[in-house]
């Protein structure tokens, strides 16, 4: 049988890096094919080549045997190749149907589009109301909009880029069901991921990439996580030794915090309470956009609207204490966005120290530049950051190295409380292992660590206790030993005893496990 998609010898060079080096890839009709690799392995570039967003320097693309040149995404769509990007491109203020309509030819009326959305959504078990405005949708629902939009083009090949990073485990299951149904109709699926378990459950073939090259084509169902990760990173990361926590006093506490949203698309925090003790890691699980940003802003002092007594830091009320003074009291924070928030992209590593460290600022506010550079150099050496030196601009570093530097900057300050968001997001496996080990070492030194993460693996690996945040509310804590993926997954939909899913019915939900939808009266009309 002719391959649906056949790439051979694809090469794409960027200044200073070869993103794709002689890459070949073959996808059969109706096959769910995984492309596995670390961040920076060249997966995204390869997908952009297929989708016409990037032109390769060499190599050829064949679709159903015919050689094609895909110069623009429009040409890709004409070849019936659809793509669902990691970051959604939806207009928040208009409805689902209008969003889909915008991406289609003008030949259909809005009413026809509504009908087709409902029909397609029903066919693949995707629950979706075409009349809902997008800003009321959860992330999982937004992804369904993207998928339905892609499916309306009746694709021969559907590309999904890291589709599960924003989904609860239950929503992942439903996505997989949809993809299997789609594959059964003969459509090929290219599934980009770095999550080994998912690939082993879903995919029938897997192309593994490392450093821009293909390192293997295997059947993931017959491989183990260890063998796949060897292909992916060339070596297995050292196993993390996690000793039991010896937790002490409560270091950071939030008590009964209720806070209205600041922007139209923010999340209200609703009666949030949590405690982190010295010497423990408290993991905060949850699908992104459920109040994590809002909670972090309160914890680190960027949002000072909390009422008295709602935020207690090391036994003292901190509700009106800004980030700088919180840092002086021992609370350090590592934000999720590294470039632009955790570091100023154009400034040197040395100057980026001054964001949170004052050692090189002398009397009268003069900066001791030599001392600053020496301090940065010491951090680079201590945390194994790969950089040209203390004067290299922050943006010249890879994501993992910059994260190591930022983590190092905060850990080196010997904080009493460390609040960290997505510590290893977009970081390669080696650096991630190093960062996780550093977090545990900090915990063992008696620091209270609060970690917000969307990666369940990471949460289970590092946390001593877990809480779940869903729709602005925080679940009661649960010891890691008592937590299971299923349970945390349910809680991520707000389904803990007394959680928001049990209280408020009818509001948008992250991923309710519900039967396939019946067409609503409006769409039938």
């Amino acid at each position, binding site marked *: 049988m002719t391959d649906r998609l056949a790439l051979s010898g694809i090469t794409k060079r*960027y*200044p*200073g*890096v070869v993103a794709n080096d002689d890459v070949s890839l073959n996808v059969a009709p109706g096959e769910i094919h995984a492309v596995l690799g670390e961040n920076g392995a060249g997966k995204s570039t390869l997908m952009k080549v297929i989708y016409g967003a990037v032109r390769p320097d060499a190599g050829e693309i064949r679709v159903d045997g*015919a*050689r*094609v*040149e*895909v*110069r623009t995404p429009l*040409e890709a769509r*004409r*070849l019936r190749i659809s793509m669902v990007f990691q970051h959604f491109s939806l207009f928040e203020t208009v409805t689902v149907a209008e969003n889909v309509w915008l991406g289609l030819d003008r030949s259909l009326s809005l009413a026809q589009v509504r009908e087709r959305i409902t029909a397609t959504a029903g066919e693949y078990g995707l629950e979706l109301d075409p009349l809902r405005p997008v800003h009321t949708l959860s992330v999982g629902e937004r992804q369904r909009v993207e998928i339905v939009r892609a499916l309306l083009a009746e694709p021969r090949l559907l590309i999904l880029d890291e589709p599960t990073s924003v989904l609860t485990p239950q929503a992942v299951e439903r996505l997989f069901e949809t993809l299997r149904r789609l594959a059964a109709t003969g459509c090929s699926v290219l599934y980009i991921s770095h999550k080994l378990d998912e690939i082993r459950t879903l995919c029938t073939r897997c192309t593994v990439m490392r450093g821009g090259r293909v390192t293997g084509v295997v059947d993931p169902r017959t491989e183990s996580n260890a063998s796949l990760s060897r292909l992916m990173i060339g070596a297995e990361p050292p196993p993390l030794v996690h000793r039991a926590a010896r937790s002490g006093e409560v270091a950071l506490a939030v008590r009964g915090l209720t806070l209205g949203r600041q922007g139209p698309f923010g999340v209200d925090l609703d009666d949030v309470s949590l405690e982190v003790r010295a010497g423990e890691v408290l993991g905060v699980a949850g699908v992104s956009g459920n109040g994590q940003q809002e909670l972090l802003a309160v914890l*680190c*002092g*960027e949002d000072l609207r909390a009422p008295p007594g709602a935020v207690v830091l090391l036994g003292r009320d901190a509700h009106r204490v*800004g*980030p*700088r*003074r*919180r*840092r002086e009291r021992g609370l350090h*924070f590592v*934000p999720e*966005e590294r470039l*632009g*928030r*955790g*570091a*100023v*992209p*154009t*400034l040197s590593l040395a*100057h980026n120290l*001054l*964001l*949170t460290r*004052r050692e090189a*600022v002398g009397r*009268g*506010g*003069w*900066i001791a*530049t030599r001392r600053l550079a020496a301090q940065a150099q010491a951090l680079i050496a201590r945390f194994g950051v790969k950089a040209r030196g203390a004067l290299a*601009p922050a943006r*010249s570093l890879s994501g993992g190295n910059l994260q190591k530097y930022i983590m190092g900057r905060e850990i080196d300050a010997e904080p009493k409380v460390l609040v960290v968001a997505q510590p290893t997001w977009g970081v390669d496996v080696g650096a991630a292992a190093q960062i996780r080990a550093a977090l545990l070492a900090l915990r063992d030194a008696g620091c209270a660590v609060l970690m917000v993460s969307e990666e369940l693996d990471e949460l289970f690996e590092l946390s001593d206790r877990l809480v779940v945040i869903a729709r602005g509310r925080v679940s009661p804590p649960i010891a890691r030993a008592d937590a299971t993926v299923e349970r945390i997954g349910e809680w991520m939909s707000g389904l803990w005893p007394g959680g928001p899913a049990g209280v408020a019915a009818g509001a948008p939900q992250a991923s309710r496990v519900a039967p396939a939808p019946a067409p609503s009266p409006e769409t039938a009309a």
Partner: protein
Amino acid sequence: MIAFEPRAEPSRAMAWLSPLIALAITVAVAALLFALLGRDPVRGLSMFLWQPLNGARAVSEVLLKSTPLVLCALGLALCFRANVWNIGAEGQFLLGAIAGGGLALWFTANQIAIDRWAFFPLAIVAGALGGMAWAAIVALLRDRFSANEILVSLMLVYVANLLLSWLVFGPWKDPKGFNFPQTMSFSADTQMPRIVQGLRVHWGLAVALLAAVAVWAFMFRTFRGYQLQVGGLAPAAARYAGFSSRRALWTALLASGGLAGVAGAFEATGPMGQLTPHVSTGYGFTAIIVAFVGRLHPLGCVFGSVLLSMFLIGGELSQSRLGLPSALTGVFQGVLLFSLLACDTLIQHRPVWRRRPAARGAVA
């Protein structure tokens, strides 16, 4: 076909070369323009590039015009680095001129004798306060009501112009001035001390150069200056660090207003020697170009000021000697800024020659 490819790292060489390339382009356009206007391009260019430096008197005039440009541009560079888009230095300049000139007028009208060197610092303080007051309006409206500082500062230029006109048409008009809209000439006591007898360049130039050093030290050697720039480069990082954006706003605007105000006071009590509706010839606006040509760097602002002041004088010369409109200055300023912004692409991108793609069809 030329394509632009992103560089792995911004080119330091291009950061320096870009203003020079922009200048070369401007010179080329100027030469072309002179040729089209039927003038000798070499002679035309010499009006802008050589005549302004030919002789002590000419250099003195260039430095005289550079002084207000340096002062205004330094403040603007600070503002722009802090992401505060103050484009109303012209208005702050005028208020400084009103304050400094008003003080000189008061000494003159009341016939109070004062030493020239005693009045000099008084003029600086008066001018600074005038400019700061005008900039404070911008800061206050932005701070309290989130009013856009670009619009507010620009519109306050017109208010300042009208205020000055009202003063010189009304209460401050010289009673013996044949009803011309101007104040009486300031007494010799209150005029700026000159550096060389017989040349108009005054000690305000030294103040401007000292200000450049001070602004450099503030920008690159103090924690306050660092905080200000982080606010401009990455507002989210500034919030994360806990740097106050309000303080940055006020610091940048007050410093910028103060510097522009000092420039205004120097102009009123220096070369003008009285107040008229035309104290400024657009120094506050020209300084925006100076700040960008100077890469928002104090040293660059000094060089940029000299260049733009040569342009100003070149325009006047080509009017008087070649019979061309002095609006040429504006054209060349525009071409310079335009080419500079275009050349700045080269800092982040590098040009590559690429053959046109051979195959045209989707299916080859």
